[in-house]
């Protein structure tokens, strides 16, 4: 780990003033400190934002939306009774990620900023356009089993590893940020970027901008009764997704009146396909419909290496998540959140 300066400002304004090029915000540190250990990230300055006042609250705003401070810890959000009741799919996504220890430390703002788990990115001895623009991509032609099948480019085939963000994308969250130019809001769909020719630009944040909060609109809570996050992984827990899906339905009189569907671990951002959702609306929840929507969700997918299986698995988990959502959100969080072994009967 390189030498760096450490500062813990007392206010958001002081934090933003403390930013200099090469600085990094320090939240829970669960991803940043790890990448500093491998040498993949070498910030010259860490600005500890964990104790900034006002960023650790979960509150309901007058317009009915829910605002989550960026420094709320993942575990605290997932276990907040009111939040989990309104947004069970988000809670399930959070609880399917990492471990109890990591969820206690990791912040929701940090979760949005977590970097890809591509081994070539974390290893400074491999070429990586995301880490070093123009260096090339050693992942292509290498160990590609877990790489992207949607939205990748010749410059980068990495995926976004977040579970939380998949659920947030489906529910159309908004990101509140502040920089030297003041405050602004970013729609979740615009927050993460596909790699294109500039994989090093991962988010819509400008240099020096700090995430203050996330907001979930009031209508997102209307999916509470029929929403699930499901995650396929190589072991039963404490593993990144091979593929995952967030599915949320609003049912009325045996018809789907609103639908959300997002896929995880398939692209550099949570993969949400409006045309797949549109297929669902107005229809009765049936297996054939879910199969059509899932196929639409992975339309255009292409292997970026030895990972064609991810396309079919993504399609299948979308079907499963839609099926599970239609069956209804469980009254209680499954013992194994988001696991195929933790869900109610599906046949």
């Amino acid at each position, binding site marked *: 780990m390189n*030498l760096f300066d450490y500062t813990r400002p007392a206010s958001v304004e002081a934090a933003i003033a403390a930013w200099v090029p090469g600085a990094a915000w320090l939240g829970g540190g669960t991803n940043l400190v790890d990448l500093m250990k491998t040498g993949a990230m070498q910030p010259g300055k860490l600005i500890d934002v964990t104790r900034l006042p006002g960023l650790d609250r979960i509150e309901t705003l007058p317009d009915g939306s829910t605002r989550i401070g960026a420094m709320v810890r993942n575990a605290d959000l997932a276990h907040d009774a009111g939040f989990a009741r309104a947004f069970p799919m988000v809670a399930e996504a959070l609880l399917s990620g990492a471990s109890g220890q990591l969820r206690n430390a990791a912040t929701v703002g940090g979760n949005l900023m977590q970097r890809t788990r591509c*081994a070539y990115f974390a290893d400074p001895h491999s070429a990586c356009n995301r880490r070093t623009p123009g260096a090339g991509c050693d992942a292509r032609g290498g*160990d590609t089993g877990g790489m992207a099948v949607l939205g990748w480019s010749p410059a980068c085939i990495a995926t976004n590893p977040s579970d939380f963000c998949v659920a947030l994308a489906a529910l159309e969250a908004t990101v509140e940020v502040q920089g030297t130019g003041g405050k602004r809001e970013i729609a979740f769909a615009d927050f993460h970027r596909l790699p294109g020719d500039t994989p090093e630009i991962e988010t819509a944040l400008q240099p020096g901008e700090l995430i203050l909060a996330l907001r979930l609109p009031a209508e997102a809570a209307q999916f509470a009764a029929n929403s699930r996050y499901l995650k396929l992984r190589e*072991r039963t827990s*404490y593993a990144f997704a091979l593929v995952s899906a967030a599915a949320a339905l609003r049912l009325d009189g045996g018809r789907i009146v609103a639908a959300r569907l997002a896929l995880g671990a398939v692209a550099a951002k949570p993969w949400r396909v409006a045309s797949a959702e549109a297929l669902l609306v107005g229809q009765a929840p049936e297996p054939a419909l879910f199969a059509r929507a899932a196929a639409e969700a992975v339309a255009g997918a292409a292997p970026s290496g030895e990972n064609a299986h991810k396309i079919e698995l993504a399609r299948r988990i979308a079907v499963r998540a839609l099926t599970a959502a239609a069956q209804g959100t469980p009254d209680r969080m499954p013992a194994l959140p988001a696991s195929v072994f933790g869900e109610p*009967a599906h046949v």
Partner: protein
Amino acid sequence: MSDTLPYATRFGSNSGQSTSRRDGVAKVTGAATFAADNHPQGLLYAVYVPATIARGRVTHLDVAAAKAHPGVVEVMTPQNRPALAGDPDSKPFMFAFRFEALQDDTVRYANQPIALVLGETIEAATEGARLLNPQYQVMPPRVGLDAEAPYKVVVGNFGRPGETVHGDVAAGHAAAVQSVDVTYETPAQYHNAMETHAVVASWDGDQLTLDMPHQAIVMSRGVFGYYFGIPAENVLLRSPYLGGGFGSKSIANGPQVLAILAARMTGRPVKLMLRRDQMFGPVGHRGATRQRLRIGIDEAGHMTVLEHEALAATSTFDDFVENAANASQGLYAAGALRSAHEGVRIDIGTPGPMRAPGEASGSAALECAMDEMAERAGLDPLEFRLRNYAETEPGTGKPYSSKALRACYAQGAERFGWAGRPLKPRQMRDEQGMLVGWGMGTALFPAPMFAAQARATLRPDGSGLVETAAADMGQGAWTALAQIAADGLGLPLDKVEFRSGSSDLPDGGIAGGSGHTATAGTALHAAGVDAVRQLTAMAVSDPASPLFGAGNASIVARDGRLFVAEDASRSDSYADILARAGGQALVGTGSGGRAPEAAGRHAMYSHGAVFAEVKVDPDLFQIRVTRLVGAFAAGRIINPKLANSQLYGGMIWGISFALHEEARFDPRTGRIMNADFAGYHIPVNADVKGLEVITVHEDDPFVNALGIKGVGEIGITGTVGAIGNAIWHATGTRIRRFPIRIEDLLAHA
């Protein structure tokens, strides 16, 4: 000794009890001191720099940049490395492997040490190592089992033959009415003990003190003495606790030798602890294999032939080859048996013994091939194994010293509920619609002994002190060996102090091969018996003793007293006997080892049967082992609680082998791209449910005086095959490579 003091009258008062670990309090309070927990005055931290190519030369290291970093004290490279007395490329003794200790700038595999950085803090040394930023001349690496032409293994690991043939193999094939010819692959696996390899080395002149986890504590003195040109007795190695070993902590490796060298170079104590990613290279692994199995059966389902050929990866500079095919010797009563090995030299660190070396990989393939044969014959897999039950060792015809395998099959099947299993696959679902499958496999592991010495002292107060340099890497030596020793001394366990884990004690032998309890236990027991024999001689010749004139043969020792066997009213306490003799402590000695003629007369193995239930999602193919029942016959069980933990652990290693573990190499660089715990998966707690262990009673009068076999490794064998077979039974898909992955099942959907 046993003819003067029949141990049977005393043995078992402590042994056989499920005593909790004697080191338990130390381990649950953080007081147990592992090697890297030591912190001598003046300590320097060492971090080794791993090669990031697999083949070529190091052309540049930025030593200046590293040295300029605050807190960096020294950088050791091939240019300034002090000489070693012993050549790391030599093989002067049985457990010597060739290793890299900066002898030159050659890179022979990824992650080999190419420099060592010393710093005043761990942070400084770590950053110094990064700043060296090595440059290379790269050669194309050879990766995978097909990268080079294979060579025939003539002499295998530790002197075992590369090929073993019993009977007429061609005739066996000709006589077969049905057969299978299948090929299975197993990947490179890395031990990954939770405690990475660590050392704290201190020199005082020519005296070397090492805090280092080691599976062969006294033997290691000569090893390090050799490399550093000092007499073995100048080396003190302390290894009271190993944070796991699994075979990887029995052999000297480059990073540890370099840290010791650095301590001598700087005149300061040096601590080195490998990073997790550095565990994938210089400290051994289980080499990848490709195994072809050919089985033939006659009309009655009896095996006419079992032919097992294994190709295994090894390094370009040493010879260890996973002797997987040997797993087919000794188990099934085939008319003809052939096991043969080939090796392929590629650019990897040398493989080494890893928990059930050979047997684990070999059993995985064998038990799956047996299942395939049973399927083809239309037989229940258990019935097929019973039809081929070997009453004597196949090939050699030697009687087994003991073999309660039939009881293992019966008790395991009963507990599991095997009866009524549908023969065909894809017949069972659970209430959630998951595919359910049942599979089984036979477990087998040899019951070897090595050599050990021990000392037992009866102290004037009647308490005992027993000493041997045993290694406790989690199997429970601190407890089980003390139980045996207490029986040898005729004392309750709480009256016995056990000193162990340090090289200044009698040689406890090597903790490996599942033979440590048998070997060191025999030595400890014999030492105790020797002390009691001397004590008895004192008592029966002492007119003041109630035992005077009783004669040795009629005396028994129990609870710190000697009794006349036929007259319990005549007894004398150890303390009183010693007090009357002048109050001196009394010392007995003993040794453990198997007489060659005993080994020649009998075939000696532990046996078992493992039954697995798996559930597989019918669409998404995520796999979960939901029940695993293992029944094992492994001679006398000294401590059922600890033995069960060993067997559970072995079975979970079986889950790991079947479903998770695999080092993934980038074929272009020869580097392992999942060299951490996020990428190299081992089971987590949620992967483990429904485990049951049964230990089947077994008296074995031949393996050793105590009747002990071993339980450390057998749990993996049988389990891998059982899970693979259960997955077939659940899905109808036969996957012939491990680990079995979601995408493998999907590909056959």
